[in-house]
């Protein structure tokens, strides 16, 4: 399994390059927002990938609680780790976009961005929890339960943030420009595929590293 990783990584890098090329050169300029709209091709795929990673982490957590197989613990943790990294990137790219189109670094008017901030804090607490528990099945299960709370929190928070707009932010920013053209949509799909693949490669690399680490520790204990 590890042997296929360099090939996959090279493919992901190539696809990322293609995505960036399409986003910067080929896709037509947005009539409304101009060049700043191009961050969309990076920002939205990263955000979707972060959701996907959180979902994967929760799915592995569910499998852990269901089947009790220890290996799901590491898989769940690594997926959430990647999700948090991509979540941080979403906040950064979203902030850059907000600066370019609304002239502020942060806006409470963008539901998605606020949701990501809440999720980011939530998943940072996941790491705090994980690293302050003793290693073992109980830690695995507590982390899994917390990861499951995360995926339930996503829709509930989204609903709450939508409702909160009524009293916190009566005017809603609309970032929907004109309908996406075919080229724009194609560019978006390539970027999305590239970022998803990149996340998958990172997930596999980290997982392989963590497993090697655990195996090595076991070996060392046997040898001593």
């Amino acid at each position, binding site marked *: 399994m590890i042997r296929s990783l360099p090939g996959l990584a090279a493919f992901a890098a190539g696809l990322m390059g293609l995505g960036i090329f399409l986003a910067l050169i080929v896709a037509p300029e947005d009539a409304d927002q101009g060049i700043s709209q191009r961050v969309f091709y990076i920002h939205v795929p990263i955000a979707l990938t972060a959701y996907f990673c959180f979902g994967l982490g929760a799915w592995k957590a569910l499998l852990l609680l269901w089947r009790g197989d220890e290996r799901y613990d590491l898989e769940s943790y690594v997926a959430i780790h990647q999700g948090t990294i991509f979540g941080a990137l979403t906040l950064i790219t979203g902030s850059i976009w907000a600066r370019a189109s609304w002239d502020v670094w942060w806006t409470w008017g963008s539901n998605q961005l606020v949701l990501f901030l809440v999720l980011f804090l939530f998943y940072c607490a996941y790491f*705090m*929890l994980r690293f*302050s528990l003793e290693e073992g099945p109980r830690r695995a*299960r507590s982390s899994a*339960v917390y990861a499951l*709370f995360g995926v339930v929190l996503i829709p509930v928070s989204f*609903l709450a943030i939508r409702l909160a707009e009524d*009293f916190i932010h009566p005017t809603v920013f609309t970032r929907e420009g004109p309908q996406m053209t075919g080229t724009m949509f194609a560019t978006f799909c390539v970027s999305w595929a590239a970022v998803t693949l990149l996340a998958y490669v990172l997930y596999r690399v980290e997982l392989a590293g963590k497993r090697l680490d655990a195996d090595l520790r076991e070996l060392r204990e046997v040898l001593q």
Partner: protein
Amino acid sequence: MTYLADVAALTHKDLRIELRARDTLPAMLLFVLSTLVVFHFALPEGTGDAAAYGLLWVAIVFTALLGLSRAWVPEQEHGVLDGLVLAPSDRSAIWLGKTLATLAFLVASQVIALPAFVLFFAPLDLVALAGVLLADIGICAVGSLMAAMAAASRSREVLLPLLVLPLTIPLMVGGVGAAISPEGERYLLLLALYDGVFSVLSWASFEYVVTE
């Protein structure tokens, strides 16, 4: 029926411990009243009622956190939690008993704190009160599970607010919305949805958190 009897016995145990030792409730009461006084000085003149309602919710959440941080302390001593886990009852009954006891403390502290809020700051209507009650249920349900997780960790008191605060954001939105929005009922629905979803989730997952 034995399930309900177990829950009742566990809640009763917590209430009786509190009646004898008086560890939690007086602290919560004093905390929430001091917080309200601090808020008086934090709110500049003419800030209006809306800001006061927001701060009331901060006070409620932090008071709940104070209560939750003490919630599993009696179980930590003398291996009580191990005994409860080994007892021939459903483990979720332990969670439900703790949630009900914490809820009782929180509501009891609010019986004093909310009139004080009305006296100091702004009136509360029925929808706002319903919002407080629904949010109390949600925060105790989620909080007692998180407190059980935090109690098993090395950094319990520090960890609990970090775990609970992101989860209380929908409750905050619902509670503040119920207090200040003209269509407060919509926010009650959000709170009821939150309570339903997260109570079932906490109820179902408690067993995994306490068993070795």
